């Protein structure tokens, strides 16, 4: 397939919002790969219209580049023009920036347009009703770190108010850390999201795409997902930076088979 255009993020302030990086671009490539398009068409294309419009949800949208890409190309990726998207981020600045990224990408669509709902300022999938998500996307904070950013400080740093330069710098460091710091094995936030998957995904059609880096011990993660139950499937849907047999980054596809 021809390269689909990367959504514009020139309005995003990368001082406190994650800048699209190798992992983001791996999502664009994976979601638009022939294998994933074929898998997703089988599950969602117009033949399944009676189930209603498919819902794509991205948790931790950051700049919004991945959700905007999925929204603007939903007719190609899912094979139908009636898709709805929803995003979340714990960083309120990211919510505002990503709203603009997604809206801009959709406004450039020529045919029937994807419907973008909102970007919610929330933690992962909290506040979304269970069983509704058809396609879940998560590019987590995956870097192993000693600690996660201080949750107690978050309410203050999440305010969109003007601050002294020193506080503003501390705020920006906090907000950026939320986008990359993954705690033990870089898996603390990902583990939380993985635990939400069986609840939040649509019980029949739902599929999740979750990115891991090599330090996250991807084989152990896959093994633990297989232990959720015999209906669960997991495979590596995309990878980048293969070195000595190890993928630096990979995206897991996680789903149920009846």
């Amino acid at each position, binding site marked *: 397939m021809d390269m689909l255009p990367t959504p514009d993020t020139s309005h995003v302030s990368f001082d406190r919002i994650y800048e699209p990086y190798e992992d983001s671009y791996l999502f664009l490539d994976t979601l638009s790969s022939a294998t994933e398009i074929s898998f997703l068409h089988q599950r969602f294309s117009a033949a399944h*219209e*009676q*189930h*209603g*419009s498919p*819902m794509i949800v991205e948790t931790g949208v950051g700049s919004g580049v991945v959700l905007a890409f999925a929204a603007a190309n939903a007719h190609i990726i899912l094979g139908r*023009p*009636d898709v*709805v998207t*929803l995003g979340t981020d*714990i960083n*309120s600045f990211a*919510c*505002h920036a990503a*709203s603009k990224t997604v809206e801009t990408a959709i406004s450039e669509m020529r045919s*029937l*347009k994807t*419907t973008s*709902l*909102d*970007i*919610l*300022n*929330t*933690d992962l999938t*909290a*506040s*979304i*009703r*269970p069983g*509704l998500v058809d396609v879940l996307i998560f590019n987590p904070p995956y870097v192993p770190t000693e600690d996660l950013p201080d*949750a*107690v400080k*978050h*309410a203050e740093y*999440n305010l*969109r108010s003007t601050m002294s330069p020193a506080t503003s710098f501390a705020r920006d460091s906090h907000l950026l850390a939320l986008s990359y710091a993954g705690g033990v094995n870089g898996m603390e936030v990902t583990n939380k999201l993985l635990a939400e998957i069986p609840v939040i995904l649509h019980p029949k059609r739902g599929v999740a795409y979750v990115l891991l880096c090599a330090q996250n011990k991807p084989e152990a993660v896959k093994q633990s997902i297989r232990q959720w139950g015999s209906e669960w499937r997991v495979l590596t849907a995309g990878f980048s930076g293969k070195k000595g047999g190890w993928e630096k980054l990979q995206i897991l596809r996680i789903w149920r088979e009846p």
Partner: protein
Amino acid sequence: MKILTLNFLMCARKACKSSSDAFPLHPRDVELEIVETDINPLFIRNILPRVEWAALRAMCNELGLPQLSETQPSCTDLFSTENLDPDATDSEPTQTLRDLHNLLVQTCIMEGKLVCGNCGHEYAIKEGIANFLLPSHMV
């Protein structure tokens, strides 16, 4: 925040997950705005099977918006001809479909609060973005 979004949300607290009163959330002191959006008739038709109609009706009442029909509109209420293919030139969206587009996709809450009917927690909406983050003792 769009009215349609609210149909997919509930209170973020774990303690409320199994309560039928945690959905829908109740809007309070809201400022509404109509944000013009291209109509996608196929989307309006196909999202309806996923909408909790009773919750949507209740939301309209609480917001003082025009009352919705008791039962969810069917396909034949949405297009003016027998041909239900929205791409077909002889299939015109009805006023019902246009009203639903206006309500679900174009009507946005810009400022206000969403209140949980179970625990009473209030979530703020500012500049159109809803904040569902909880203080750590409430998660």
